[in-house]
């Protein structure tokens, strides 16, 4: 079961990018009650301070471009964005999606719901980051497999090896050179290209 640790919530750095009106104040007050480190920013600035975990972003037609530019320049890992909206029209929802929001708070803002939204938004954002990292790893792995397959086929063709023997050769070479199987396979492909004098597509 997922556990909420309030200490994690309190250690969050939150930016509230919203005009200083009653809605903005409700968010700031509630963040104060929870005990988050909070910055109030309006209008959107050129960049975002480093290590902001959550951004409450007021969505308006006339400040959308500045808001987008500001969030684009945020450091990685990107903050979880909670859009603060006053209309439920598709025209406005398009802006919400454009900002990459993972949660939404509707106006008039109530203090109830701010914390829930932060927890859900953070969780959602963390899952996205985890998935992206996992995907990057898998992509790398997949590319490695292609390289190994190519190197195996080179060895099988050149030396009449079986597939198992070709793989075993690559693995042993990699071990003795203290490198990865993928790198060794790439070295075999490079050497083969050099010797045969023609580039080989991987």
């Amino acid at each position, binding site marked *: 079961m997922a556990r909420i640790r309030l200490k994690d919530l309190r250690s969050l750095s939150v930016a509230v990018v919203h005009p200083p009106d009653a809605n903005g104040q409700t968010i700031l007050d509630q963040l104060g009650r929870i005990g988050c480190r909070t910055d109030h920013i309006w209008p959107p600035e050129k960049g975002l301070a480093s290590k902001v975990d959550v951004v409450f972003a007021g969505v308006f*037609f006339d400040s959308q471009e500045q808001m987008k530019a500001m969030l684009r320049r945020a450091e990685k890992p990107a903050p979880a964005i909670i859009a603060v909206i006053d*209309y*439920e*029209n*598709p*025209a406005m929802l*398009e802006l919400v999606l454009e900002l990459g929001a993972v949660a939404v708070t509707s*106006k*008039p803002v109530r203090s109830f719901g701010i914390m829930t939204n932060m927890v859900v938004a953070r969780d959602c954002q963390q899952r996205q980051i985890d998935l992206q990292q996992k995907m990057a790893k898998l992509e790398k792995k997949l590319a490695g497999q292609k390289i190994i397959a190519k190197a195996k086929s080179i060895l099988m063709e050149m030396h009449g090896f079986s597939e198992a023997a070709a793989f075993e050769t690559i693995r042993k070479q990699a071990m003795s050179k203290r490198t990865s199987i993928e790198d060794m396979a790439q070295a075999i492909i490079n050497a083969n290209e050099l010797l045969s004098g023609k580039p080989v597509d991987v």
Partner: protein
Amino acid sequence: MASSKAPVTIGFLYSRTGVTSVIEVAQRQGALLAVQEINAEGGLLGEELRVADSNPQSNPHLFKSEAARLLDDGVDALFGCYMSSTRKAVLPEVEARQSLLFYPTLYEGFEYVEGCIYSGAAPNQNARMLADYLVETYEPRYFFVGSNYIFPYESNRIMRDLLSNRGAEVVDEVYIPLSSTREEIDRVIDRIRAAGPVTVFSNVVGQGAVDFYRAYDAAGFDRTVRPIASLTFGEPESLAAGLDASVGNVKAAPYFSVLRTPANARFVAAYRALFGPDQPISAEVEAAYIQVRMFAEAVRRVDGTSRRDLLKALPTFSFEAPQGPVRVDAVNHHTYLWPRVGLVDGKGEFEVVRETSAPEAPEPYLVEHDDPVSFAKAKGGGR
């Protein structure tokens, strides 16, 4: 017999100054006419119907504070708001006090607040018929211009879908501030000129719209082939812009003052007797009038002003409005209305060039305005 609930007092939220004062002054007069008629008929619950007035100056902050003041003074319901930003500012006050707002203006849709009764057109009740008429009549290339707030953005988004479904193209889309300068309007005119032959769809509202229509006229575009079409520029705005700037332009709305219904003849005569013979009357004015009349009818039926009872009673009767019989929808609190398209003729009067044969059901959440279901409903003439 006076009831213990009398006197009934209604609060007005109509600006008499600010960017949208031209139309809001006229809406206020429409509401005042209804109050006068109700009192001439003996008032409400045995006493005179009273009005608590305000002037929120086209400013959302003032709309909010004036709504709070009127509600705290004990009004039984609020009437008014033109721009969506002002309605949005007022509704939390209304809901916090479990009261009612009667909103008499067309808007962009996608809203339901329990205590709000919407009697202006939802997009399915004006934009769809306008799109049909435009593509059958004018240049197939469109230029969108709007004021910089929610209604123009959403209205343009909807119209873009409707036109694209009909094979027409939108070549440009620009926005100007609500309080626009001469230079900002001139820049729009330059871009229209640069765009080549286009029909203009304008969601500019208030004084900016009057200035824009005049500038479009001064630029010399031939409005018999490339008019300005809108959902908002009606009789009061045309009068303010002048005859030269108005002829040939198109508006879609459920009501035009030229309608030949007996109810409208009575309405127009009474309005002009009260406020002056040349007073322009538009759909927003008629909606302001019918909302007070429908409220009064509901109060009589439930013998009181409790929000719960009124919300229950309002959808149960049809009101013989100047535009035709209308009624409130029980589920979405919007109003069944009569879509029409009007064209300004050589005398500056709107001529109705297209109209529905039955009131159309309001569909404020109709995301796809031309999906098969909507088409079938439109063909069936409302449901």
